[in-house]
C-alpha cells in the first residue's frame, strides 16, 4: 500500500492542484494578513513623497509571470495617482510594452490621471545595462519619444526631468535579475533610490539589499501585493491570488508530508 502511495499517478496530483486552484478562485475567501516590514517601508516611502514628485516604474517582467507583479503595479499606481505622484513607465523586456501601456491607461482612467501630466509610458529600448546607465546621464538620450511616438520634450510632465537627479524613486517590478542591475548601476553610480516588487522565486535575493538600504522597500510576491492592497484598504488581484496560493501551498505541504510518512514506513519495513 505504501509502495503504491509513494508511486501515486501524477495525474491524480495534477487534478488535486487544479481543484485547489479553481475552488478558491471561484469562491474568494478573505484571509487575515499582517503587513511585513519590506512592504511597509515601500508604502511609507511613497506615502511621504510630496505631491508633484516623480517615480519611475520599470515593468521588468513578461506575460508569463505577470500574475504576481501586475497586482503590485496596480496597487502602487493607484497609490501614486491618489497622492499626485507622477509616474514614468518603462520596460527592459521586449515583450512587455503593450501590457504595461494598457495597465497604466486602465489604472489612470480609474483614478482620473491624465496622460502626459500625471503619467507617461516610454516603452522599451534594447540593452538593459546601457539603458539603466544612459538614463542616468540623459533620459531623452535613451527614450527620444514615448511609446506613442510623442517627443519627450513635448510631454508636459517631462519638462523639468533630465536624468535620475529629478527622480524620487525607481520601482522595479521584476521577474528576473533586473532589480540587482538597477541597484548596481543606478543606485551605486547615480544614488537613485530603488524599490522592488518581485516574484516569489527571487524574494530571498532581495534581503541583503534591504538590510544595506540599497532597497528602500520591496513587495515579496503575492504576499507583497496583498500587503500593499491592505495598506491602501483596497483588496484586489493580489488578495485573490494569495488566497488561491494559500491552498496550493497547503496541498504541496500535505503532499510532501504524506510522501515522507510513506517513505519512512516503507524504509522501516525494509529494515
Amino acid at each position: 500500500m505504501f509502495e503504491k502511495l509513494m508511486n501515486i499517478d501524477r495525474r491524480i496530483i495534477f487534478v488535486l492542484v487544479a481543484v485547489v486552484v479553481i475552488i478558491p478562485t471561484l469562491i474568494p475567501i478573505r484571509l487575515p494578513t499582517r503587513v511585513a516590514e519590506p512592504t511597509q517601508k515601500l508604502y511609507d516611502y511613497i506615502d511621504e513623497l510630496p505631491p508633484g514628485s516623480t517615480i519611475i516604474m520599470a515593468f521588468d517582467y513578461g506575460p508569463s509571470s505577470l500574475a504576481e507583479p501586475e497586482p503590485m503595479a496596480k496597487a502602487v499606481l493607484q497609490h501614486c495617482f491618489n497622492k499626485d505622484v507622477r509616474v514614468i513607465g518603462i520596460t527592459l523586456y521586449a515583450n512587455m510594452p503593450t501590457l504595461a501601456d494598457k495597465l497604466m491607461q486602465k489604472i489612470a482612467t480609474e483614478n482620473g490621471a491624465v496622460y502626459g501630466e500625471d503619467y507617461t509610458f516610454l516603452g522599451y529600448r534594447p540593452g538593459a545595462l546601457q539603458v539603466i546607465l544612459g538614463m542616468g546621464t540623459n533620459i531623452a538620450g535613451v527614450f527620444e519619444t514615448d511609446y506613442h511616438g510623442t517627443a519627450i520634450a513635448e510631454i508636459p510632465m517631462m519638462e523639468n526631468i533630465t536624468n535620475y537627479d529629478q527622480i524620487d524613486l525607481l520601482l522595479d517590478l521584476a521577474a528576473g535579475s533586473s532589480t540587482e542591475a538597477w541597484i548596481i548601476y543606478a543606485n551605486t553610480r547615480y544614488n537613485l533610490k530603488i524599490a522592488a516588487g518581485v516574484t516569489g522565486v527571487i524574494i530571498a535575493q532581495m534581503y541583503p539589499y534591504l538590510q544595506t538600504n540599497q532597497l528602500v522597500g520591496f513587495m515579496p510576491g503575492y504576499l507583497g501585493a496583498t500587503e500593499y492592497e491592505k495598506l491602501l484598504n483596497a483588496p484586489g488581484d493580489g488578495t485573490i491570488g494569495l488566497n488561491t496560493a494559500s491552498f496550493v501551498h497547503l496541498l504541496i505541504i500535505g503532499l510532501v508530508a504524506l510522501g515522507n510518512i510513506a517513505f519512512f514506513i516503507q524504509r522501516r519495513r525494509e529494515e
Partner: protein
Amino acid sequence: MKRQVPLALCFLFGIVMILTQFSPHSYSQGVYREVINWNLIINPFALILAVATLIQTHMTRIQRRTEHWQYSLVVFLGMAVMVLIGIPLGPQNSYVEWLYNNLQVPMDATMFSLLAFFIASAAYRAFRARTFEATLLLITALIVMMGNVPVGDLIWNSVLSWLPMEDGASKVRQWILDIPNLASRRGIILGVSLGVISQSIRIILGIERSYLGGGD
C-alpha cells in the same frame, strides 16, 4: 589582425571606462557618456544577431530532419506572421495587439502555469528527508511556505496556540529570510563579485579570450 584588433579595443575601452569611474573631471565624464551612447547604438545589433542565429539553428534542424523538426516550421510561421504584420503596421496596430493579447500572452502564461502542476508532483516524489541536510532543507522550506501565506498563521495560532508566540509561521519565516538567508546570500554576492572582477581583469588584459571564439 583578426584577433589583435578586438583585443586592443577591449583593453583600451576596459581601461578607459575604469578610469572614468575614478575621475569626476568633465572630460572624463564626457567620454563616459559618449561610450554609453555608442553602447546604446551597438545593442540593437545583438537583436539582429539573435534573429540570425535563431533562423540558422532552425534551418539546420529542418534540413537534417532532426527529432521534432516540424516545430521549427511553427517557429518560422510565427516569426513571419509577426514580422510581416508588425514591422509595417507597428506594435500598436490592432491586428498586432490582437495577436499579442490572444496568442503570446495566453501561451506564455500557460507555459508558466504548468510549473505549478509539475512542482507539486516533483515535490511529492523528490522532497524526502533521506539525510540530515535534506531534512534541514525540508523543514526550512515547509516553514517558509507556511509563512508565505496567511493560512500558515491561522494554522499556527490554532494548532500551536500553547506556544508563547502569535503568528509564528510568518515570524519564523521572516527570521529565516532576515538572518540565515541574508548571511548566505551575502556570501554568494561577495563570491560572485570577486569572480566578476577577476574575470573582467582577465578579459581586459587579454588572458581570457573565449569571447573571440575558437576555444583558446
